[in-house]
């Protein structure tokens, strides 16, 4: 504008000085945001006060009075315990769900680009059907079509005498502690896993340095198996396998999950995987064609081409949008409320139903989801940074 020294030294009026105008616009913008926040806050607190609804958090220590299936706590436990229980149950959906949906997503995404006509069309059908359906509907379908028609508890299905399948809960064989040394064994197993990982890394480095075969899977799994079995024997077999058995109205032993849990897990994993598949497909297409042609020229097999050349580059592109899908997955678990799986949203709503104040509880609920999302973002971003190509 007219601030160059070459022009006449006439003072620019303040209201036409770009620097001042820019600063001014920012201050006004900030002021408007602050005002909106203030008005909303004022509305909330004022209305709550007028209606005589308390704004304190004292209720957190009062008894929650919520019914939760498989809960280790009674209905008289304090509100905080119930919120933690809800967070744990949401976590129980997130933990197996995220790896599963990633795996299915990658398989279907690669499948859509397959030269095999049947595989490609089936993958396309899967993606188009699930991607264009509301997740709530998918959950209802899973509940009504997959879970409810399962055998009743009076007449359970027990395939191989190892599993117990009813529409109330599904059970699989699981470890059970029988001896006093069980916890020692679990620590040894954890330690062995860490060492096995370090061994795999060491073998990789040896391979990179000297070119000799790394055999890292063999080395690490072999080490892990030997240490685990040895420790199990030395500690006096403190851990056994518990096989589930139907016992009247319940199932004893094994590891079991409620029907509603599996309905939500299956529905949301399949739903989110369809989105991941599209991201994977797009990312693979974004890898320059020359890369796979070069791999071809090196006489790599189709699988090697995918595993060592295309996918590593495609996943770098795919990770940021996939994080979004993980976050969506975790947030969508709140839809479990529709079929009554007690994740954190349902429990918070039940607490509200029991007369505890909604504003504070919803605030806590938002905080819980925020922490979930931030944790996932941070973890995946750390992985992303390690995988990122170093710019040269």
């Amino acid at each position, binding site marked *: 504008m007219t601030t160059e020294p070459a022009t006449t030294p006439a003072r620019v009026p*303040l*209201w036409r000085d770009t620097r001042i105008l820019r600063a*001014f616009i920012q201050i*006004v913008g900030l*002021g*408007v945001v602050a*005002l*909106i926040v203030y*008005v909303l*806050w*004022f*509305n*909330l607190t*004022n*209305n*709550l006060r*007028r*209606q*005589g*609804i*308390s704004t304190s958090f004292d209720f957190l220590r009062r008894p929650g*009075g919520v*019914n*939760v*299936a498989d809960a280790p706590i*009674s*209905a*008289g436990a304090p509100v905080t315990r119930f919120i933690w229980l809800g967070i744990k149950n949401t976590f129980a959906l997130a933990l197996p769900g995220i790896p599963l949906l990633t795996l299915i997503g990658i398989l279907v995404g690669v499948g859509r680009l397959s030269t095999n006509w049947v595989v490609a069309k089936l993958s396309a059908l899967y993606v188009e059907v699930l991607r264009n359906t509301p997740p709530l509907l998918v959950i209802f379908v899973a*509940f*009504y079509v997959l879970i*409810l*028609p399962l055998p*009743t*508890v*009076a007449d359970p299905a027990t395939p191989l005498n190892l599993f117990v399948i009813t*529409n*109330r809960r599904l059970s699989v064989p699981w470890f059970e502690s029988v001896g006093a040394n069980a916890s020692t064994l679990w620590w040894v197993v954890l330690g062995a896993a860490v060492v096995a990982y370090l061994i795999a890394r060491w073998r990789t480095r040896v391979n990179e340095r000297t070119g000799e075969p790394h055999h890292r899977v063999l080395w690490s799994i072999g080490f892990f198996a030997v240490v685990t079995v040895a420790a199990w024997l030395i500690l006096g077999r403190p851990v056994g396998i518990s096989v589930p058995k139907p016992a*009247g*109205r*319940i199932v004893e032993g094994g590891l079991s999950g*409620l*029907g509603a849990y599996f309905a939500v897990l299956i529905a949301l994993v399949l739903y989110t995987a369809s989105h991941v598949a599209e991201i994977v497909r797009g990312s693979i297409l974004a890898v320059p064609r020359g890369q796979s042609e070069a791999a071809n020229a090196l006489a790599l097999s189709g699988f090697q081409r995918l595993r060592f050349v295309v996918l590593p580059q495609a996943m770098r592109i795919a990770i940021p949008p996939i994080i979004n899908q993980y976050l969506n997955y975790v947030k969508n678990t709140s839809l479990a*409320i*529709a079929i*009554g799986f007690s994740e954190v949203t*349902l429990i918070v*709503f*039940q607490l*509200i*139903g*029991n*007369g*505890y*104040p*909604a*504003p504070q*509880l*919803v*605030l806590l*609920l938002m905080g819980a989801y925020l922490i979930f999302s931030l944790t996932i973002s941070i973890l995946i971003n750390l992985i992303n940074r390690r995988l990122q190509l170093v710019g040269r």
Partner: protein
Amino acid sequence: MQRRLIALLAVLAMVMAACTTAAEDTPTTGGDGDTPATSGDGTTPDDGTTDTTGPAVLPQDEGGVLAAVQDRGAVNCGVNDAVPGFGFSTAEGEFAGFDIDFCKALAVALFGDVEAVNYQPLTAQQRFTALQSGEIDVLIRNTTWTATRDGSEGATFLHTTFYDGQGMMVTADSGIESIEDMENASVCVLSGTTTELNLATRFDSAGIPYTPQTFEDNETLQSAFAAGQCDGWTSDKSQLAGVRSNYPDSQGGPESLVILEETFSKEPLGPAVSDGDSQWAQIVDWVVIATILGEELGIDSTNVDSFADTEDAEIRRFLGLEITDEEGNTSIFDPGLGLEPGWAGDVIREVGNYGEIFDRNLGPDTPLGLDRGLNALWTDGGLLYGPPYR
């Protein structure tokens, strides 16, 4: 100069902010920003709860709920749409039921028109938020009166319309005869209800292990129950009777279900309004009482007009008929509730007295087939007792 600009922008911002609040306010009040219309984002836990059909009203608005309702020309009534007998939608898409009839009674008392109601179907969890935010004027949705709800939910409970109690329904072939037989049983229950608390209290105090299965709505719950996911279904006995009467023949029909003898809670169901507007609360209260008084005085929808010449002073006061005193002056009794004289007669004529409402929706001739029990007049050994109309 720029100070003026700042002032101008600040004013603009304030007007904008005021408009965003005023937009949800009653159109009659100006957008002065001082009368916030909603309780802010915090009280609406889910996007499913904020579907306003009419302008929202809070008691602190000018003139109170009554004025706002009269402006609107209809009562916003929060109801249930899935409990046979109490609140449900018919095949024609009309709302019907015991609770619905009290919505209609309120509309008749205010406007003389049973149609002057906006029904707002609500889930158990949405109902108090809807009441607090002013989305509905009155909640008549088989809601149990408890101290916490009165005290912390910003609700004021009014005259009980139905004295209920919680029970347990099981399948006839399950062999369960009492709660004590239900060890390790899975129990279906609706979330966000006092039923849930009573269930926990009953089983925990007896030391009976059980698995609760919580559902959001009765339809999903019924599917899960029919598929055998639950051994028992617990709810207010009246609701269980309603479900049982409607149980589809494909799943065994009503005979395949048994409601256990035991009643393990008190469930006084009645209308609730938002705290802070006693005039509106009194109107709702007295509409309920009027139906009870109608039955007590022997006035029903068929004979209400035959009382025009009655000598009974109480009936004349109740029906808003002219009363002649010893000096020959005539007057019409007006208790000052804010309703037109004769409203009680209109309610009885259009909707009926308590006994008629009960018999029409819940009584022995309906699929529910409930006895009056506690819901009989006090003169017949029940709990219904209306304060005198004078």
